Each structure stands twice: as C-alpha cells, then as structure tokens.
C-alpha cells in the first residue's frame, strides 16, 4: 500500500540530494586553477608599462609578516616599516596578516587558497612547491632589481627551478648552533665564556647542570618535525648524512648511518644513565624556545637566530642568552644550514606580483645591501625596543654581510659579547644544506625515533632507524605527481 503522506517528504529529500550533487559537480568543475600560462605575458607587459613611468593602478597586497603572539612593540616596528614602504610606493597598500609557517597550517592555507600574497617558507620546501606549481615565477621581476647574481648560489638555489628561474627570494639564512643558558652555567659552577667544545664536553656539562641546579642540562626537540631536524643537525655534526644523491638524480635514504646511531646512543646515555635531560620530551620549536627563556633548559641545539623570537615572544632575559658553534666531530662533519624564502602566491594579478617583489626587496633585502635600508630598518626596530644585530649567515657574501653590520653598528642592542663563541667560529665551519628530497617528510619519519629513544629505556635504536629508513625510501621512491 502506498503511503502518500510520505511522498512530499521523500520528494524533498530527493531534491536535497540532487541539489547537493549539482553543487558538488559545479564546484569541482569551477575550482580555480592557477593560470600560469597567461601570467608571464601579462606581467612582462605591465612591468614594461611600469618602467616607462606611467601612472600606477592602485594595488593592495597582503603580506604575512606579522608573527602571532609578538609584543605590541614588535608589531609597531612592522607597522612603521609598512608606512615607510607605502610612502615610497604610494600606489601600493600593504596589509599585514598574522602568519607563521608550520606544516599543518601551511598545508591547510595552501589548499584553501588563503595564503597571503607574500609569505615565507623554509629552504626545504622551495623546490617542492615549485614542482607542484604552488608559488609563482618572479624571475623577471627579481632580476630587474639588479642584484640577483649577487646571491650566494648555494643559498639562491633553494628558490630556483631546474632551469634557474627564481620563484622565491632567500631572505635569511641560519646555521645551527649550541644555545646555552649563561645563568645556569654560572649556577652550576661552569664558565659561561668557555662553553663546551666537544660532544663529550656537552655531555659532562649537561650532567653538572642537572646535578647542581635540578633543571634539564641538555634538551632535544622531538615533535612537529623538529625531532628529525635536530637529529639531522647532530648527524651532520658527527659526519653522517641522511640522503645520498646519485649522479642520475636518484635519492637513497641513509637514515640508519653510523653517525645517527652514535648520536642516538649518546642521547640515550644522557637520558637514562646521566639523567641530565629533564622530564619533558615533546618539545617543538616554539615550546623549546619558551622553556629555554624560562630557564628550564641548560643547552639545546637550535638556530642561530632565536634571540629575536625569544625576546619578542618569550620574555627572555638577555643575560641568560649564550650561543656557541656546534661541536664538530669527524671528517665530513659540518653545520646544517637552513633559511627562509619569500614567495608570492599563485593567485595574484601581475600588478600584485610587481608590488609583492617590491615589498620583498624593501622589507627583507634592502637592509642587507644599502646603508639607507640598513639604517632605516635598524631605526624602526630600536624605536620599538626590538633586537638589532642578531647574528645571521650571509645570503650574499661575507663581505656584504660584514658591511651591513658596520652600517648598523650604532644601533646594535643585543649582547654581542655573549655571542662571540658563535660569531667568531661559524664562518670556519663547513655549511651543509639540509637533505634535498622530501625533507619535511624525512624529518616527520624521524620524530618517533627520537621520541622513542627519549621515552623508552629499551628502545632498539638499530631497529627504529631501519624501519624509518624503509619508510623514507618509500616516500622517495613514490612517483612524482
């Protein structure tokens, strides 16, 4: 027997399903795809027009230059620099947006199309994003600035495609360092001006700090890909490598090499025999900085550029900050070097790309190349009590870097004497680039290995590394999209 009372309800339900299906079909058909074919001609045309000095169309760009959680003073320094930029280029409006690169938030913003017009990415992701057509070709615009060949080639290569076209501009380079708390050193009876020179020194100092002060003498990051990153750093410092690239371009994972095993053995001994690593083992980049600034960590390996973040986000006491070079052990050892690239969103008009490259030039590069730029940047920072003079690695050459430091020497307000153990030796250490293929996935596969060694006294280091090696090799062997 037919139930006619149910018919209208079932008709409505059917309508809803049909409507949803139509929406699904329409949406997937109309999803925006980057119009890379159209853009080079358009951008060539408009940049030619611009250089002829014709009137500029007002254009607005969103820049991801505001770090979440900074103090108001740090934000004010940025706003001041935006005002200077807008005074120089009156037709460009710059809207700052909160932006911080982490793998999950970047991936979600990339898929949603909500990345700012100018955003930063680590060196590790430059080539991968270029291959996936997720950042736009700005080669012509960057070369028009005139200093494209001054870049250190091993730094610039991270933002270039295989033909050498520039897709992303290097804005900062760092080398890994051993960061240590000078106050804790003093409390433990160690001399903060004579930081550890070898890994055995590090282990001994960690034990002393843990015994005398009760805090972790040495700590290691272990989550959000930073575990693998720091393990790679220590591996390089002991002469090992995580990936081997053959002449034909094939990449082999070498995660289970002897240097990595030695590093993990040492971590295991420090954790379970010396008990000098405290009781927290899930540090990521931000939480490690916070713990250090709070005086809960004696030493850790981290970037050479952390002082700024710790001051702006974690209320670091400047007297606590000490930094020295990572101890190198063995032939083939070196310092892991990384850095940041500035890239431009694919979903931008030609005028926006022009404006974006001008912003990159003004905000990131001018302070390294011209005295006016350097002094203007230093003035804006000191006016808001922000650090000036934090050690960095050159993205051009050493001479240019030294010159830029001379220009701002009257504005330097960081405790440079506390940083000389690093600055006096870093340029003598060989700099090694991060693993070249699927770097973040390599790091992600190593995080559980580091966590296991630090939380399980019976962790089988060889088995863990072999399993991770198989996992990474599978990722490396997967066919390219």
């Amino acid at each position, binding site marked *: 027997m037919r139930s006619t009372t149910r018919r209208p309800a079932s008709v409505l339900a059917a309508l809803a399903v049909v409507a949803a299906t139509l929406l699904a079909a329409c949406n997937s058909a109309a999803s925006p795809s980057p119009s890379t074919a159209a853009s080079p001609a358009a951008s060539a045309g408009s940049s030619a027009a611009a250089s002829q000095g014709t009137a500029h169309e007002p254009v607005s760009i969103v820049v991801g230059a505001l770090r979440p959680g900074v103090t108001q003073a740090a934000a004010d320094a940025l706003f001041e620099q935006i005002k200077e930029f807008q005074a120089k280029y009156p037709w460009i409006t710059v809207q700052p947006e909160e932006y911080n690169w982490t793998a999950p938030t970047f991936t979600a913003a990339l898929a949603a199309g909500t990345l700012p017009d100018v955003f930063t990415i680590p060196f590790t992701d430059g080539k991968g994003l270029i291959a996936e057509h997720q950042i736009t070709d700005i080669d012509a615009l960057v070369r028009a600035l005139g200093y494209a060949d001054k870049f250190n080639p091993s730094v610039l290569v991270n933002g270039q495609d295989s033909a050498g076209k520039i897709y992303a501009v290097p804005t900062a380079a760092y080398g890994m360092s051993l960061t240590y708390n000078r106050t804790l050193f003093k409390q433990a009876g160690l001399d903060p001006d004579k930081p550890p020179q070898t890994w055995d020194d590090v282990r001994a100092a960690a034990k002393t700090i843990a015994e005398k002060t009760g805090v972790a003498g040495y700590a290691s990051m272990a989550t959000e890909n930073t575990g693998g990153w720091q393990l790679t750093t220590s591996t390089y410092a002991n002469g090992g490598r995580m990936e081997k690239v053959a002449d034909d371009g094939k990449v082999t994972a070498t995660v289970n090499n002897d240097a990595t095993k030695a590093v993990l053995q040492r971590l295991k001994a420090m954790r379970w025999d010396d008990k000098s690593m405290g009781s*927290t083992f899930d540090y990521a980049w931000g939480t490690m900085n916070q713990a250090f600034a709070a005086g809960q960590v004696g030493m850790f390996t981290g970037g050479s550029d952390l002082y700024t973040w710790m001051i702006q986000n974690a209320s670091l006491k400047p007297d606590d900050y000490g930094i020295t070079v990572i101890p190198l052990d063995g032939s083939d050892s070196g310092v892991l070097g990384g850095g940041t690239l500035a890239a431009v969103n694919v979903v931008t008009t030609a005028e926006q790309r022009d404006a974006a490259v001008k912003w990159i030039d003004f905000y990131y590069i001018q302070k390294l190349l011209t005295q006016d730029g350097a002094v203007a940047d230093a003035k804006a920072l000191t006016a808001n009590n922000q650090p000036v003079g934090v050690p960095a690695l050159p993205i051009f050459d050493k001479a240019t870097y030294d010159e830029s430091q001379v220009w701002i020497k009257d504005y330097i307000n960081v405790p440079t004497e506390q940083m000389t153990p690093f600055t006096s030796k870093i340029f003598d250490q060989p700099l090694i680039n991060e693993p070249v293929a699927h770097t973040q996935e390599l790091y992600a596969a190593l995080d559980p290995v580091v966590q296991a060694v*630090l939380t399980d006294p019976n962790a089988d280091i060889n088995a863990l590394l072999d399993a991770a090696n198989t996992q990474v090799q599978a990722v490396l062997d997967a066919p390219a999209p």
Partner: protein
Amino acid sequence: MGSISEVAPVPSVDARSRAARFRVTRAGLATFAFLLPMLVIFGLFAWFPIIRAFVMSVQDTNLVSDPVYVGLQNFQRVLADPLLGIAVRNTAWFAFLALIFGFPVPIILAVLMSELRHRRGLFSALAYLPVVVPPVVSVLLWRFFFAASPTGVFNTILGWFGLGPLPWLQNAGTAIPSIVIEATWAAAGATVIIYLAALVGVRPELYDAAEVDGASLWQKIRYITLPQIRNVLFVTLILQLIATAQLFTEPLLFTGGGPANSTMTVLLLIYKYAFQNSLGGDYGMAAALSLMLAAFLAVFTAGYYWLTRRWGVDS
C-alpha cells in the same frame, strides 16, 4: 480492503489517504518554504561535504592542482600503511579504557546525586561545568597540569601522598591513560545530567518493595536502578563508543600523536594524511580513511542495535 472496513469502524484507507493528501498539499508550499533554509544549510554543510568526500576518496588530489581519478588506490594505500594498524590499536585501547573507567563514573555520580535532598541543582551545575569549558582550553590546561617534572601540578599533589612523579604524557604507556582521565572529566557532566533525568523516572514503589524484602543499597542499585535505566544506558554506551572512535582533539593537543605514535588515533591519522605534508596534503587518502571509519561505525552501530534489541524494553 473491503472486509476490514466492515468489521472495524475505521475510515477506509482510500478515504484516509485522500484526506491526508489534501491536507499536505494545501499546507505544502508553506511547509516547503519553511523547510528550505534548513535544507539549504544542511545540504551545503552536511550533504555536500559527504558527497565531496566520496568523490575525493577515488581521486589523487591536493586540492590545488587538478585531481586525477585513481579508483580504489587510496583505499589500498591506507590499508597497506603500518600506521593504520597502530592507530586502530590505540583507538581501541582508548575506547576500552574509557569504557572501563569513564563509563561507570557518570552512573556512580548520578546515583549519588539522586540521593541528595538539597543542593542537587548546585551539584548538577558543578558536574556540568567541565562540559561548558571549551575543549581546547581544557586540554591545554590539563597539559600544563600533566607536566612530568616533579614540580608539575599533579606530580606535586602526588608528592603530598608520597607517590613518585609520573611521566603522564611523556611515556608511551601512560599517555593514553592520562588522556582517558581528562576525557572522562570533560564529558562526564553531560551524561550525569541525562542519568539524573532517567533516575527520576524510576518508580519509588520498587525501592519500597525492595526495602521490605531487606535489600542492601548495592542490591537496590544492581536489581532496580540499573535495569530500570537500561534503555538510557544502551544509548549512552553506543554514543560513547562512537565518540571515542573519533578521538582527535585530545591527542592532537596533548601529544601530537606521540610519544613514538602511542597516541596516534584513526582521526589523527586522517588529519596527518590531509595536513602534515607542507608540499600539499593527500586529501584522497584522508577521505578514503574517513569513509572507512564511517562505514565501520555504521556497521558497528547496526550490529549493536540488533544485539541489544532483545534486552531493551518497549515502553
């Protein structure tokens, strides 16, 4: 049809349906107009994503480049992933612990609170307070409390009783039990309120009869209270199992899946497929695992209702 209407004074089926049809079509347009906003919103935010998920599960897509249809490859890759077995095991272990520890707690609280003569409202509000706190806030607070150093909040409290500092979230064996404790605290209040309402419906004569027969408090609970609210218990049990199968916020914010993947759950694995690779997420695999989880929960729920059908009471 005709023989039935001769026996019983019921209008014939034809006449009834004619009257109903007339009633519905006269009110039809207005009804449809009122339903339309709900249908649009429901369609846009529930049905559209579900259909999109079915489509994405057979595609290789990072939601930026053009998708490629790959048939059942995503499902095969998910099933071949060693992390899937770990995630399923961890989720099952959490569900089991939440059942043993977390399921009885609201029942006990509700029974205790129903004995109160005064201040029942105050205790209800206090029990419900953790539910009102946003989950992210609760988890981050508890993460601070769970600090594994001897000066962490919980370790300090344990120290007052002479108990050693526990590693809480820093050890693979204690991480999931720690999350169970927080999850129970956060969710117990809502079920306590439900049980209190159900307990009010238990007829007092049953307790009086038991009193006369000389039943102890425990016997009263076991033979009267629990059987009388068993329909509610069946529903809250399946709801809890479905919710624990979808555990996500707690492992994400407490440990990120660590230490060493010991708190990796199925939903966290879906999140990892979708968002961990900064060069572009694998949304096809994420959609495939989501559908597999949904299918499993649907089959599980159907089986559960079939099994408990015989034990329930048709009221």
